[in-house]
């Protein structure tokens, strides 16, 4: 018992404990990466499939989806509204990808400190969206924040 206590307080035991803790942290990070990667890949595939059905062109696959863009996040979007339809928006992000945002009765739309209606949204509004990805490659919006239009910086 005494030798076991001695071992626990030894440098070797500390090194072993730290190594195990490090391995657990690495494993958790790996699992988190796998989880996130799976979600992004699933959404990107559904988005690509929808895009292909709408516009044609090469059938999306793992190779075509990765071209220049990588997998896209499916739980939100930010960018400019390029089209407003009944119950949905088309938001173009900085990379040029257009994501369809579906509005539901639970969607909250905020402009500054006010909650506004979907009818107050305009094309060219800058928005940030949080929502859930659907199997059809759209995002079901839960919160949309309309951002103030970016001010032009004076040129020297």
């Amino acid at each position, binding site marked *: 018992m005494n030798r076991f206590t001695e071992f626990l307080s030894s440098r070797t035991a500390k090194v072993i404990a730290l190594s195990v803790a490090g391995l657990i942290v690495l494993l958790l990070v790996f699992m*988190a990466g796998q*989880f*996130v990667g799976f*979600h*992004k890949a699933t959404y990107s595939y559904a988005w690509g499939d929808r895009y292909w059905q709408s516009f044609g062109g090469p059938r999306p696959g793992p190779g075509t989806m990765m071209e220049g863009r990588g997998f896209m*996040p*499916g*739980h*939100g*979007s*930010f960018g400019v509204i390029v089209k407003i339809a009944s119950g949905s928006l088309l938001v173009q*992000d*900085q*990379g040029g990808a257009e994501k369809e945002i579906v509005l539901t009765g639970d969607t*909250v739309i*905020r402009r500054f400190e006010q909650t506004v209606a979907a009818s107050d949204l305009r094309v060219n509004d800058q928005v*940030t969206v*949080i*929502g*859930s990805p659907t199997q059809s490659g759209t995002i079901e919006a*839960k*919160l949309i*924040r309309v*951002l103030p239009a970016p001010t032009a910086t004076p040129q020297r």
Partner: protein
Amino acid sequence: MDQHDAQLLDRIMTRIAEIRIFRRRVRVASFGTLGLVALAAVVPAWRELSEEAARSGFWQYMSMFIHDPVFVASAWKDFVVLLAETIPAFGIAAVAASVITFGASVRSLARVTT
């Protein structure tokens, strides 16, 4: 100990001292260079982190939490996954690696010089 042995011992000790000084100089030069390179790498790594975060929308989503914490809390699951999806992992890794390398090289440098 005769005079010959004393001279030999003296030469051996001198040689050992020379080797120690040489090794210390090599270590100082190595850790110094590594520290400078790591310090210089912090700036581009930080720039990459900022650009990656701006590109992925990470700052925009974080600002949503600041502006609408109550509404974001009601969709916290989607928000957490969204942050995980857009976190600038490469930039964070680059900044962390350069800062840790700089700190480790400074620490080693202090140990060598004292």
